[in-house]
């Protein structure tokens, strides 16, 4: 791995995160927002794996495993909340969920 390709991979992971961030901010559908969060999580995953590969440190992949666990937990709860919210509110519009009571 050259210095340039390492830098490029890091920039790529930043771009992935920002794309995910844009998705969360720009879309109103809750499901699409959840998918964008997954995209955003892919950014740091790539960064960790790249850094781990560069320094031959298993910590990079270990952090990726933790990110995996985090994503699993978040998806489980997020989707459960989405299904619950769908009974009383509109699931395609997160903007309607602006008060605490639903």
């Amino acid at each position, binding site marked *: 791995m050259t210095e340039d390709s390492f830098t490029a991979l890091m920039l790529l992971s930043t771009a992935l995160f920002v794309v995910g961030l844009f998705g*969360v901010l720009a879309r*109103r559908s809750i499901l699409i927002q959840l998918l964008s969060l997954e995209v955003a999580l892919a950014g740091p995953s790539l960064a960790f794996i790249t850094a781990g590969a560069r320094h031959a440190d298993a910590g990079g992949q270990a952090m990726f495993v933790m990110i995996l666990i985090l994503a699993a937990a978040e998806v489980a709860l997020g989707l459960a909340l989405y299904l619950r919210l769908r009974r009383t509110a509109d699931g395609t519009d997160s903007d309607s969920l*602006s008060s605490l009571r639903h």
Partner: protein
Amino acid sequence: MEVFGLVLTYNHLLLTIPSIALAGFVMLGLDPFRLRDFEVRALALIGGVGPLIPMLVFANACFHGQCTGMVPIFTLKVGESTVALALQMDPLAALVGLTVCVIGAAVILFSVAYMQGTALPDLRRFFALMHLFLAGMLTMVLAGDSIVLFLGWELMGLCSYLLIAYNTTSAEAIRAGRKAFIMTRVADAFLLAALLLLFLEANSVRLDHLIPAGVAAQDGMRPIIAALLLGGAIGKSAQVPMHTWLPSAMAGPTPVSALLHSATMVAAGAVLLMRFSPIIQAEPVVMAIGAGLGALTAIFGAAAALFQQDIKRLLAYSSISQIGYMMLAIGVGAPEAAAAHFVVHAIFKSLLFLSAGHITHHSPRGTDIMAMRGASQRNPLAFLAFSAGAASLAGLPVITGGWWSKEAMLGAVWGVEPALWTVAVLAAVLTAAYATRAVLIAAMPDPGSHDGHADHDDSHDTGYTLVPLAFLGFGALLAGGLVEPIMHLLGAHVPHAPLFTILVASIAPLVGVAIAFALAYVPALANGLQRARDIARRTRRRPRRQDKPAGFWVRIALAFSRGLRIDTLYQIVFVWPFVKLVRWLNGYGRGVADPAGNLPAMAALRLQRAITAPFAPDWIDRTWTAFGGRILALWAALRRLQTGRARDHGLYMAAGTAGLLLLAWGLTWH
């Protein structure tokens, strides 16, 4: 054996003691476990009696000199500090832990029969919470480091709240639970502060590092730490001034009162002080304050208990008073005597609650003291148990356990401060008086008795009920033999008290018994009590001033039966202003919405108008003054940014992050 970097030894079996109760909580409390009625009861018994078995093994070893000591479970080095989770088994932990396990087993055994007839989900909730409480208390007792100690402490407080408010349909119970939780939370804040200060001193979390560091603390830290520990103990143990939650906590079911609010949880404050006694004993001022408050609580509690109209509130004030004794003993430097009294008090107080609960269980008058009448005919066994407990509480000489422990405490106090000794003796007189009063009322024939009621009613006496009552009853009488061994175990040098004090300690309860008889049978006193009772009942339903002037005796009785109205005082001083303030801040009732933004602007506007009013403002002046008003309008416009939408707030956060990143980037430019 090494697992995950931990060296497991047999000592780690200490973990099983709270874990059995915790497992009971998990299985009973988690929704997905479908359990039938007898399974629930079996689990309740296993979780309740289970911790007793390993506890017996470890305690037995400890009493024979082979204490396990500190058992670290998880150690982490963070920089210079050591964070370790550990349990420990030393004589104090063994003693208190064994008492908690035994009383817990007895109460849960009793409550299996007592809670008959409740709906299954509620039964599960009840036993799950009782198990969680047992786990929390055992964790706190066996704690070897401050994190585990505080965890157990908080669990106890939480379970206390949930169990007091067990009857979720009763607004009074919920209010009582909330009051208990909030007051003990204030005390928990003191304890947390003390533990954090100790951590700063010792750079470690383990108790065997914290306590010596606390004793060696400089720069005036030690009195602060000792005072904070005392504050924490006062709140949890319902001492004056933080005692008003305990009488209200009697709104919970009787087994809850028997386990939590008499024997174990409220004594946790005293146990805390016993655990940290090296620090406390190094600060004479704090000791003096503790002893003074203990004596004051002892006599106040006893006086209030004498005039209570509800048997559970009577016993609650009695607990307050008895723990006052323990605090007094700790304050004069005799924590071992306090430990002995803790054990004996746990036995007879839980016995009193259980037997009183049994006697009044199906009474239409609830737990009013007059519901105890006729007990000697209806449930003679429960009445006998109640009398045994009352005798021990009163401290009848020699034959009851209470006398031995009270005598040990009084002997210790005499050696240090005779003035406090006098107060304690007076409290002992009053203690015997109210204990005897309760027994006398229970021995009276039930006036509403026709053929059916006065008869022997043992349909509710099952093995579950009788075994604990019998066990505790014998314990209350025979526990006197335990007092000296306990004090030796904890390393106290037991001096022989002078004969004078032993004589006074023996006569005092008899004087109290005489007073109780006088209150019951001397017409002037008895009528005064009845009058006070009627006034209290009438003014509770329709709060109005009584028209006829009441005599001095009646007023005294009324005042003490209401606990000297200290609860009302706290409501007026603390609760009511706070609620008003919160309502005002939220814009209810002529309040201002968003006061932090609006009030300064409004004040500035008023000031400015007041200054310029005498001068005739022209259009330049008016534009300037309009500027102030525009600020308020701008504020209102900015408020509309808070849309509550996730996307919008996410946008603001992202913008803020972008700003920070740009700033950081810009700072790297040369």
